[in-house]
Every structure is written in structure tokens, then in C-alpha cells.
């Protein structure tokens, strides 16, 4: 598989970034849900520290992915009704936006609660805002709401890909897979 995109499918760089981010997002949802239910204590500190490190990783990968996308334009979408193409564009744009908004709201929330973020204990990141408990409360709501929107959009994204693959049988899903199933 070539590094760069071809008219038929995404190249290995775009595919790797896509699937690594998918994996990390699943980890993030899981850690976020676990932390939400934990009492204030040691386990929560550890889980949230991991959550933050993975979140910063996603932010860095999202930056790389956006830069790569601008450098290496995605393959054209297969023929489909106009509304579907429009819906795909809007949801892709929203998914990209959330890839940035989730870590940035999380990072800001962490700064606002005076828990500076360290990336896996190796690098301490600068604080984005001064400690502010009220801001932290507000951002916590925003972060959680955005995570629900992300989950809904990602589900829609998967449902649409499956519809193209198995109902329309237009081979759309192969564009983001390293092998051909037929």
C-alpha cells in the first residue's frame, strides 16, 4: 500500500492515523467512564493522569493528521446522492473539530483545577488558564457533552460506512482498510 492516497483509497499514513486515533478514542471513553464513577482518591488520580496523557497524544496525532490531509488530499468519494455527500462532509468536519475540542477542553479543565498536565510523566505541559474552580465546573460539563456528541457522530460514521459496504455494496469501506475483502 503506498504512503500517499490514491484515487481509490487512503494511503498508509492516513489509514494509520485514522485507526490509531480510533483505538485511542475507545481507550479514552473507557477511562473517562471509569474515572467518572470512581470516588475521589488514588485510583481516580492514576486513571485521569493516563486519560490526560492519551488525550494529549490524540491532540498531537490530530494535528499531524490535519497537516497530512492538507498536504495529501483525500480520495474523491464514490457516487452517492447529494445529501449523503453533504452529510458526510459535515460529519467529517465535525469529527475533526471534536478531535481538537476534546483534548483542548480537557487540558483547559485540568489547568483550571490546578492539576497541570504531564505527558506520561515525561513532559509537563504549560497551563492554559489560571486555577478557577467555576471555570473547571463549566468545562467539565462541556467536555462531557462533547464526548457524548463525539460518540453519537462516531456511531453515525460507522453506521454510514456499514451501509455503504453492505447495503450499497459500493466498496467505500475499503478506502480506509489495508486489504480487499473481495
Amino acid at each position: 500500500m503506498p504512503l500517499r492516497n490514491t484515487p481509490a483509497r487512503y494511503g498508509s499514513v492516513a489509514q494509520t492515523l485514522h485507526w490509531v486515533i480510533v483505538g485511542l478514542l475507545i481507550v479514552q471513553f473507557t477511562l473517562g467512564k471509569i474515572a467518572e464513577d470512581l470516588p475521589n482518591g488514588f485510583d481516580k488520580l492514576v486513571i485521569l493522569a493516563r486519560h490526560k496523557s492519551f488525550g494529549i497524544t490524540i491532540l498531537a496525532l490530530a494535528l499531524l493528521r490535519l497537516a497530512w490531509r492538507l498536504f495529501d488530499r483525500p480520495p474523491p468519494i464514490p457516487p452517492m446522492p447529494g445529501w449523503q455527500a453533504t452529510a458526510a462532509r459535515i460529519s467529517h468536519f465535525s469529527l475533526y473539530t471534536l478531535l481538537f475540542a476534546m483534548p483542548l477542553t480537557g487540558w483547559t479543565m485540568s489547568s483550571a483545577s490546578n492539576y497541570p498536565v504531564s505527558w506520561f510523566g515525561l513532559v509537563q505541559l504549560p497551563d492554559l488558564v489560571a486555577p478557577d474552580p467555576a471555570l473547571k465546573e463549566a468545562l467539565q460539563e462541556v467536555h462531557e457533552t462533547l464526548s457524548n456528541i463525539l460518540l453519537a457522530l462516531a456511531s453515525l460514521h460507522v453506521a454510514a460506512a456499514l451501509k455503504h459496504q453492505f447495503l450499497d455494496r459500493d466498496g467505500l469501506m475499503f478506502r480506509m482498510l489495508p486489504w480487499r475483502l473481495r
Partner: protein
Amino acid sequence: MAPTLTLRACVVLLAWLASAAATAEVWQADQKSGALRFVATQAGARFSGHFGDFQVRLDFDPKEPANARLDVTIATRSANTADTDRDEVLRSQDFFWVARFPQAVYHAVGLKREGKAWVTSGTLTLRGVTQPIAVRFELKPRQGSFTMQGGATLRRLEFGVGQGDWASTTWIGDPVDVAFELKLARDSAAVSP
């Protein structure tokens, strides 16, 4: 007029110098006259907090630094890290155990000169454990008083601060830096020996 005023000022100044030379003066400070901060490491990131209730008393004659006394009392309950959840953990039995040990006390006799700074070799009693801790600070004259600025580094585990899982230095660093910047006021009530 002017010479008389100058003369009077000289007399007052000489009298003050004479009294200062003769006896130690007692200086004090608390949370209203400055800040007492700490910086600790959590999950690899350094964060700071402060104590909202403390008293500092410095009994000090520059001519006899060996007889100087520094006493600091800190209400452990007043630890404030701008996060109520974390402050609650700090007050718990695993950390400061404020229900049993409401105060941390630093006591030192004698100051040593090291460059521009003064250094004490006193003891800190925290969570029921007493350990030697050196505090280094500078005294800078300011408006008839002094600013006292300095700090110390301690190892929290030597005092048992952070029990059970919290003893893990992977997640909570052992060294904690303490820093203060205080404007000392003359303690008029105190009678110096």
C-alpha cells in the same frame, strides 16, 4: 528649621540604632502579610498550593545571630490547592491527618550566614513526626521593616505524609518545596529578653 529637623532625626535614628544593638527585636508575620506556598509533584506534574493560616515569629538581633529564634506555626487544615477534592484528601488521615495533628510547627535557634542568605538548622514537626529541616531566607530592609523571602525542601514520606497507595513516588513525588515571602512587622507586644 531645617538643621533642627535634621538634628532631631539624627537623635531619633541613633536612639533606635542603640536600642536595636542592645536587644533582639521580635518580628512577626502571618497569612495577611505574605504567602507560604508549597510545590509538589503529582502524576509527573508540579502544582502549587498555599497555607491560608500560619504565624511566623522571628526573634533576631543582627549582632547575635546565634541566639536568633524562628518559630512558625501552620494550621494544616488551611492547605489550599484550588481544588476542593484534593484539599479534602490533604486533610484526610492519609496526608496531614488534621483531625489528630492540626498544626505543623517549625522551630529553630540560631542563624548562619551563607552569602546573602540566612540559614537555620531547625526541626519541623508534621503529622506527629519531627525531622531536621534547613530553612534558607533573605532579609531585606523595607520601609522600617524587613521582607523575609526564602524556602526549604522536605521529603513528605519522612513525615508519613501520603499513606498506603499515596506513598508511591511514581504518582506523588517525595520532595516538596516550600517557599515564603513575608513582610515582617515589629511585634510591639513582645518583650525581648
